[in-house]
């Protein structure tokens, strides 16, 4: 039994199965993060004290000046670096796919390896951020802003980890498929690339809404 259009495109839809599948999955993900962001908006507008940090907490954190907001505890420089890292990884994953299209497997390994390093770098910086919060006794329960921060960035980090596993598989053992079914392997890289762009996009929304606004 052979399922049609697993590798080649169906003429009238112009898509192979997995490509339509990943777009639908991403639509579902848009609804998930859409609900999370909407909840954030609703909680923030619904509670006048949402961003206000009490004086005692600000003092314990050695923050200078008056009238502190919860977002002051987040590190904008680290998040900015992370934004650059993710955007760069979106470029490298396109390069890895393009290299495969040009039948240059060595270049694919290089660009895909860079993408994986970027993902690891992102997670490393994320870990530094999280541990600095925990070391100052800032937890999800401390305030609703921090609850939103940890939930949204935590779910995003889970998506990065999920992507990382697939990227590592395609870089390592999964790349054997290039010998047996090259077109199918190109499709796989394209599909995970679409997912990776989405993960990137979520962060591009998370960064300003949590750190800057």
């Amino acid at each position, binding site marked *: 039994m052979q399922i049609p259009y697993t590798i080649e495109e169906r003429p009238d839809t112009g898509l192979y199965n997995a490509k339509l599948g990943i777009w639908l999955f991403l*639509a*579902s993900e848009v609804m998930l993060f859409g609900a999370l962001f909407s909840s954030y908006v609703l909680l923030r507008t*619904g509670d006048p004290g949402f961003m206000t940090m009490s004086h005692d907490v600000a003092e314990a954190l050695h923050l200078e000046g008056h009238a502190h907001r919860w977002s002051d505890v987040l590190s904008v420089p680290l998040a900015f670096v992370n934004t650059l890292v993710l955007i760069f990884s979106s470029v490298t994953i396109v390069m890895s796919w393009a290299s495969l299209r040009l039948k240059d497997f060595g270049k694919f390994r290089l660009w895909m390896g860079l993408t994986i390093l970027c993902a690891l770098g992102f997670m490393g910086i994320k870990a530094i951020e999280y541990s600095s919060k925990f070391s100052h006794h800032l937890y999800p*329960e401390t305030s*609703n802003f921090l609850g*939103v921060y940890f939930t949204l960035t935590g*779910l995003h980090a889970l998506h990065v980890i999920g992507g990382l596993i697939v990227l590592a598989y395609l870089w390592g053992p999964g790349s054997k498929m290039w010998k047996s079914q090259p077109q199918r392997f190109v499709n796989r890289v394209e599909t995970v690339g679409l997912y990776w762009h989405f993960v990137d996009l979520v962060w591009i929304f998370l960064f300003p809404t949590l750190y800057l606004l």
Partner: protein
Amino acid sequence: MSVLEKPPPEAEDHADHHHPEPFWKRYIFSQDHKVIGLQYAFTALFFLLFGFTLMILMRWQLAWPGRPIPIIGGLLGEANAPGGIMLPEFYNQLGAMHGTIMVFLGIVPLAVGAFGNYVVPLQIGAPDMAFPKLNMASYWCYFPGGLIMLASFFVPGGAANSGWTSYPPLSTIATQGQTWWLVGMIFLITSSLLGSVNFIVTIFQLRVKGLTFMRLPFFVHAQLVTSFLLLLAFPPLEAAGIFQLLDRVLNTSFFQPSGLVISGEVLEAAGGGSPLLWQHLFWFLAHPEVYVLILPALGIVAEVIANNTRKPLWGYKSMVYATIFLGFMSFIVWAHHMFLTGMGTTISSFFQTTTMIISIPSVVILTALFISLWGASIRFTTPMLFALAFLPMFGIGGLTGLPLGLSPTDIHLHDTYYVIGHFHYVVAPGTIFAMFAGIYYWFPKITGRKMNDFLGRLHFWPSFIFINGIFMPMFIVGLAGVSRRLWDGGEQYAHAQPVLEWNLFMSISAFGLLFAQIPFMINLFWSIKKGKKVDSNPWQATTLEWAAAPSPPVGHGNFVEVPAVYRGPYEYSVPGHPDDYLPQNLPGKEG
């Protein structure tokens, strides 16, 4: 047709050069959509029976409050029913879990997981679903999700007891069972996500040559829209579930308002959360979910009616467009569940308007099905009986929904038995009857044998009478203002006294309904081995699953040879054609 019964030898060679698979791979971790469909079917039927049993226990308590439950009363445990007498806490668990189990573990898996899985690939001429491994994963997310729900009855404090809607802050402070409920739901949401992606890709990508969208059987359209609803409506509930889980486990305050006082103590949490946020996220899923419950049922009924009236469906195109419109609209009606929350009259006006609008496509579909009966020489087969009963039952369910969709009348009726009567008319004598129609209709496809018609009638008529005996009085009780969640059925309320006698009537009807399912259970299992053998197309149907595939279909790939399609799905009684049905795959003049 004779070609189908004996596949040509060379086709067999092509199809069957695989090795016989071990038992566990063939029946347990199967990737064949037919086996997975049956796994879904039997698991879902078990959960339907289990959920029904929970209700039987509740109905005993409502008929005779505080009287020990006979026979099984002693087995329920001292914590739930000391001396066989049901405690209110246990009653609340039964209520919450009845709703959860019936909706998420019973009807949706049966309607989509079972019927969709088995029938859709056959109706579009596909060898399997687009992603067989995802299909398997979908079942194996559903199954542990169900086990977690069942296991939650045995944790301290018992299962979830905050209603199937799990409104915070009640659910946030509820016993441990609520955490199990949330974890179970995350499994079920994952399962439905995998399933819906698979269905949509299958329907878009694997249609055979000639099968354009306007030639798809209505059942496939219904499953397609259903899959979109599942795909897009469930994620917000997942977000809400994650928030509630964190509220319970990490003590965050997403749904916990500031200064909440419980039993005289201020709750220790940061506060500032919004309990209404949960309701919005929950109903954003749960209203489209209503259409997930009803659309596959409409699809089944349409198939059965077209086949048994021997006529094309009246207004097939309007039905398809109405279904798509219904799908869109179902995303913007959710807050009609929340008229009483104080969200404001402006928002209420918006949602009552959209609610009135969404009734139009439902009426279009139902009217088209009614008119399809006009002038037909109807075959009163067992599936047709259930399909015919579906029409007025769904009609009653829909019409009684209008006063609930209008904010002024809803204020009186909200959370009364009227609501229970309304949505049960839609899903019980509505959807579940359609599910029965589907089982009787496609049973010969699965087994090559027919179910017994006498037992079928013995199942249908008592079920039809008793199910109305349960739900019709609920409108009366509800109009009198009796709340839906009362452990004693309203005994201690003065306004409930004039209608209290109905409790006994409804309970006896419920027990009758339970007994009426015995012929069905006997029929189902007996017919698998002993039912009357039939040929591959016993109903003389036009759609591909009957006309192009043997019954049961070939193990790998369904079809002996890939069919092609030449015409629409319901070409019955075509003038000039010798038979009264013209199969989709019969070459000839396109029409």
